[in-house]
């Protein structure tokens, strides 16, 4: 069944991570999504975008991805929000380094405070707050679709 869709392109700046979250909140309000669902979408968006912003940049001097056509180019993150009767699909595409969030380990705090290493909890939040996640490496970069059941 066809849904209603929105699309917008953001940079990898910190300001744009916040701008994208505010954009998602306005869409959610316009279609009367419950607050809990909006919150879940914002958690996943925040984790995916901040990960791209912090780790996605392809350094032009890097030899790790010598064939990377976008080396040195600024990050571009496009977001599609598709609202269906039974679910919301949020698709995030970027031109950054490969990162398969679907296969990445969902780390949680599992050690005493003295031993726990701060950070790295984002993938678990994405998996905990969404109902399905699919990753695909594309010619342009990464494509992640996260589903939320209504």
């Amino acid at each position, binding site marked *: 069944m066809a849904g209603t869709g929105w699309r917008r392109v953001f940079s990898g700046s910190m*300001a744009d991570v916040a701008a994208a979250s505010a954009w998602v909140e306005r869409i959610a309000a316009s279609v009367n999504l419950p607050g*809990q669902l909006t*919150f879940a979408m914002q958690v996943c968006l925040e984790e995916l975008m901040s990960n791209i*912003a912090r780790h996605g940049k392809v350094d032009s001097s890097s030899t790790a991805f010598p064939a990377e056509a976008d080396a040195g180019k600024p990050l571009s993150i496009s977001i599609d929000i598709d609202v269906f009767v039974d679910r919301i699909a949020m698709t995030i595409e970027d031109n950054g380094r490969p990162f398969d969030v679907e296969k990445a380990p969902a780390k*949680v*705090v599992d050690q005493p*405070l003295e031993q*726990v290493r*701060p*950070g790295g909890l984002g993938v678990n939040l994405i998996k905990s707050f969404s109902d399905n996640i699919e990753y695909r490496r594309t010619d342009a970069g990464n494509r992640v679709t996260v589903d939320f059941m209504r």
Partner: protein
Amino acid sequence: MKLETVDLANGVTKISLSGRLDIQGALKIDGDFVAIAEAKKNIVVDLSEVSFLASLGIRTLIVGAKGAANNGGKLVLLNPQPNVESVLRSSNVDTIMPIINDATPLATVFGA
């Protein structure tokens, strides 16, 4: 994102946070929060006015908790909103930072 500090009785410091503890919010308060936590011993972090929490915000809280623990103290989280609490519990953060509410006597939390 705002941060306010007040010293309570029995050597307990209350840090009240308000706003969104997202990547921008975490970057804004991280330095001050960690500095306070490393200077104090027993800390209550009031989360009642925090409307959003993501992993970088959790990172800031964990670094602060480690600072308090290094001083022989403890950091606890007070009154998180339901959505924020679900982020904390789904990350198992409550296993290293107790989540308390207004009804919880601080004397039992800190043994003061």
